[in-house]
């Protein structure tokens, strides 16, 4: 089966939906049973509201897409007022993604969310947004800053604390170790890769901010390599994501060392994909006489 106990949290399935690809959970409620999703990581929330970047913000690529939304969000106070009440009614597990520009931003945002007393089970900390100048990327590329930020946040919550890692670094292992040493419960890997596109008719950049985050199946091999590197480097659990589009992908990530996975870009095409893949994963377990899919964690063999 694909359910899993993760820290003190029981996830009904190992397949979550990634931050920024599922809004605040209510948008698809008329199409699918959102409670059937293993967990929802909500769109990045910041200390203060953000308008986001000017258009164009998205472009299609070979087996993927570029996005540069720029962390558009209502800000944490409005989040507590208008988003948390609905999220509190859901049975699926809610993880709140937090982005920031300075340690105080992250800490204050997390403290406000703690004080709001929501049912959410944890926080995923975005230290790796490539699309805003001050998107936490300075944290995401420094093991030392990742460690001290993690330690500061650790003091503020006993809920799950998950640091989201960037692939746009020299050594993702060092950053993962920083998160582990700082007291993170888990890391998620990976955020988007830096990409770019040009419209040859207009000779303009396809994305207003020039550089953008590449996601989708195009980045799956990169994500898998990074998950494996992190698995070799740390003992804490790993949430794998990056271009997952089918149950075979999910199993690959688990064999590479992931405990849970997140679906991102594919949610746009198929809002219920995380539920379908969880069912297919259960079937895979039955077909292969596995009591839990997690028995396969990190079991990839070398040549």
């Amino acid at each position: 089966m694909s359910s899993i106990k993760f820290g003190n949290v029981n996830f009904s399935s190992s397949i979550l939906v990634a931050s920024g690809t599922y809004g605040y959970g209510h948008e698809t409620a008329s199409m699918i049973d959102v409670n059937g999703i293993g967990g929802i990581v909500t769109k990045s929330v910041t200390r203060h509201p953000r308008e986001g970047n000017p258009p164009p913000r998205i472009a299609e690529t070979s087996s993927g897409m570029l996005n540069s939304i720029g962390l558009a969000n209502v800000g944490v106070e409005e989040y507590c007022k208008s988003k948390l009440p609905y999220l509190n009614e859901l049975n699926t597990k809610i993880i709140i993604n937090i982005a920031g520009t300075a340690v105080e931003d992250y800490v204050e945002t997390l403290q406000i969310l703690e004080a709001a007393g929501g049912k959410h089970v944890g926080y995923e900390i975005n230290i790796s947004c490539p699309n805003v100048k001050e998107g936490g990327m300075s944290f995401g590329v420094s093991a030392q800053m990742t460690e001290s930020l993690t330690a500061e946040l650790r003091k503020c919550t006993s809920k799950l604390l998950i640091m989201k890692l960037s692939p746009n670094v020299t050594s993702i292992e060092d950053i993962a170790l920083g998160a582990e040493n700082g007291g993170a419960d888990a890391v998620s890997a990976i955020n988007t890769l830096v990409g770019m596109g040009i419209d040859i008719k207009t000779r303009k950049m396809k994305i207003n901010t020039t550089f953008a985050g590449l996601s989708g199946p195009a980045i799956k091999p990169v994500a898998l390599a990074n998950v494996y590197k992190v698995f070799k480097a740390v003992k804490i659990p790993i949430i794998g994501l990056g271009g997952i589009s089918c149950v075979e992908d999910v199993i690959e990530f688990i064999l590479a060392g992931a405990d849970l996975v997140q679906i991102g870009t594919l949610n746009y095409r198929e809002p219920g994909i995380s539920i379908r893949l969880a069912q297919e994963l259960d079937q895979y377990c039955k077909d292969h006489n596995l009591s839990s899919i997690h028995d396969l964690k990190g079991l990839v063999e070398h040549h």
Partner: protein
Amino acid sequence: MILNELAIVESTENIAANTFQTFLKSPKLAASMKPGQFINILPSENWDKMMRRPMSVASQKDGVISIIYKVVGQGTQLMQNWSVGDTVDLIGPLGNYWDGYTDKLSILIGGGVGIAPILNLTNHLDDLGENKVLIMGARNSSEHFIEHNPEYGIYMTTDDGSLGIHGNVLDPLKLALENIDFQNVKIFACGPPAMMEAVRQFSIRQNIECDLALETLMACGFGICQGCTVEFEKKQEIREHTYRNRYGLVCMDGPIFESKEIKSCHL
């Protein structure tokens, strides 16, 4: 309420040069869609693209909806190749819809990709017995499939003069507005950005009420990806799906916007 429905292909007709109309049996969508709304189409279960293709609906009647598209890329090529009886995954109804078309004389302007929502409203006004003017712009006669009939308020324009009025849609628009109090007119337009921007600026200059249906790239179509933004002329109240007040989402705040509401039709 947004639905995810598996529709069945009923027929596809070649209505103009490289332009097709496909009828899809889709009872739930047909019962709930209004003229101006759109659906997000997965052209094939197996395709390697990440984004569905958003398309305005050209008709919704008796359990069947139709779309009109020009074959320009892989997605529309797949659509043209659909066989009768094929299953197609649709999400809809999406976006807002035309309104205010019974209060004044409606002038409908369509062009290129924008003919579907304009045809939809045209037929709806015919059903209601409402008077209207219809203007369709194209590069040449091969792209037109409606008769140029100025006597009945139906004007075709072509860039090369091969059919109807030699010029752009503003020429018959000015003709249609002769001897009419502009306060008794409302324009509804959908087409290429340059055409819509010309209509938008004209309507603002002349102080004519004007609604425009925008088209842009979308990843989801229902407010999650925040990718299909349009800049508002003035900051608006924060809405649930837009998160902030400077940019609107074409999928949720639109696709139809008042001409004065937005900064430009070039997205």
